[in-house]
């Protein structure tokens, strides 16, 4: 929508409709990479970065496809371009910062196949955001993803030290934690909308 202010777009993407906790995008890495604060932080930053890249590429592709009247190729083009971009970034990091690569290592390919990245591209198109709005949307989504990941990792690290019953260890507990976080994030509903 044309009318939405940048601040609202950011807040909406970051907390109100948080990609992980409200829209269910990027759950696999959210569950997989949230065991340690440090990795969570790295993963969050990597995702934020890739989201920006993908948002810009998606904006460009969308423009090109609209010009050529080939909208039905949108999905293929988005995913192909994003995947290639991520792979480039991966090689780049591997070459120039092996230490960064080791800490982000496996995540980069994970991000390629992460619904959050593609979802971002599709949503920004569906919402007909202009360039600036798209970038802010990507920023918000990335920040929201990082926030969710960080909170989750903090809780999981804390529970590392707990005497968690055998039954609830592992994935089940992660999901319940995610549920609790999601429940708490419901408090943000309607934030920034004009009420009253």
């Amino acid at each position: 929508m044309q009318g939405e202010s940048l601040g609202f777009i950011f807040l909406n993407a970051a907390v109100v409709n948080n990609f992980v906790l409200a829209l269910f995008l990027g759950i696999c890495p959210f569950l997989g990479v949230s065991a340690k604060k440090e990795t969570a932080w790295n993963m969050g930053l990597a995702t934020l970065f890739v989201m920006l890249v993908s948002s810009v590429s998606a904006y460009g592709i969308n423009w090109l496809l609209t010009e050529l009247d080939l909208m039905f190729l949108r999905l293929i083009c988005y995913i192909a371009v994003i995947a290639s971009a991520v792979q480039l970034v991966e090689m780049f990091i591997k070459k120039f910062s092996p230490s960064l690569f080791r800490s982000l290592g496996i995540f980069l390919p994970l991000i390629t196949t992460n619904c959050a990245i593609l979802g971002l591209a599709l949503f920004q198109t569906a919402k007909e955001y202009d360039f600036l709005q798209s970038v802010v949307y990507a920023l918000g989504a990335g920040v929201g993803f990082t926030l969710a990941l960080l909170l989750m990792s903090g809780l999981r690290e804390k529970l590392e030290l707990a005497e968690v019953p055998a039954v609830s260890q592992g994935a089940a507990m992660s999901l319940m934690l995610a549920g609790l976080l999601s429940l708490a994030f419901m408090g943000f509903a309607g934030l920034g909308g004009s009420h009253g």
Partner: protein
Amino acid sequence: MMRLLNLFRRHKTFSHGGIHPLEYKERTAGLAIRRLPFAPRIVVPLAQHKGAPAVPLVTVGQQVVRGEPIAGADGHVSVPMHAPATGRIAAIDLWPTAEGPKAPAIVIEVSQAANQAVLYDEPVDVLALSPEEIVQAVKDAGLVGLGGAAFPSHVKLAAPPDKPIRTLLINGCECEPYLTCDHRVMLEKTDALLHGIRIVMHATGADRALIGVEDNKMDAVRAIADKLPDDGPISVHAVEAKYPQGAEKMLIESLLGEQIPEGGLPLDLGVAVYNVGTLAQMGELLPLGRGLIERVVTVSGPAVVHPGNYLVPIGTPVGFLLQQVGADAAANEVILGGPMMGMTVASLDVPVTKGVSGIVVYAAGDADQQPRTVYPCIKCSRCVEVCPMHLNPSMLGQLAQKREYGRMEHEHHLSQCFECGCCAYVCPSNIPLTQYFRIAKAINRETPTVAV
């Protein structure tokens, strides 16, 4: 504003943490120092101090005279031993210690006939000696810290030239509950104490000496102040009565407002800290040229019939001492040192050593001995509030339960913990935090790889 605050906080203290358990000092604080009979057998462990154990100079069967050197220092950080009583060397053998492992000790069969006079003395004018000679004299006297750590006193005197000692702190806090021996020493041996201070100032070149005394012993403060000129280099200060005010790190912060850098020594601030008992002994022994053969020990606790402050020959077995003062029938726990940091002994054969400042005896069923339910840490943050080293015992405790000893050291400064026990004292979940930390430190010491 500051003045208003000072109304509430009359005396200086350290910046963070600390506790104030009941003192239990009133039973013995007023009792003058007394002697007890000699035990029939006296046991002098060769390792009573920090550093290398002493080497025996005597053989089994040999007769020794009270005050005679029976073991020599083995290197710089080590001190000699002197015979605490006249008698015959019955054995040099493994003997139980308070720490646990049996260790070599010289056993003296005390001669009941002897008058136990000290015959080994070479009076000297200490203040006329050179600093090097004083250091040697202190070492020859077998002096170690009587405040508990039993660190050889001469080592602290011999400061390296690049780190000269400017300030001397004399620790008269005696912050442990029950203990009153330092209190009595300050009252009864004031002159010896002041003489000891002058010796150390002379030896180190320190230009001032501050005596810190907790404000629950104002009579001692007055007794010392009465003997001091107003503007001399030696001054006495009352500090807030709060455990562990007597820990040297806390006392330095209270009196000088500075903190010892992490991993550093008082020396890094140009400071040396001595216990009042140590300096009183120094002031007494050095002029006579004698060795350390006895010390003042507070014997107290709910299960002691005649509590008091006793001048005890080093090496007296704890069991004998308790016979003399009388112990309750239900007595079942004997602590060497104070109740906050002292060690329980597994055998009453363990002797009193140079570092033992008190013996506290509990009986089965005393309130502090009740078994308590241990709950999980409820993150109440009390331990964080009381830790004088500003650590996070809650986190450390949780990590210890998961055996994450490396993380304890690397992320949470485990080695800064000096095991004062404040955290375990306050923990409402009754978690044995301090014990966890001792275990963790022991393991980290042994397997440095864990700590990577």
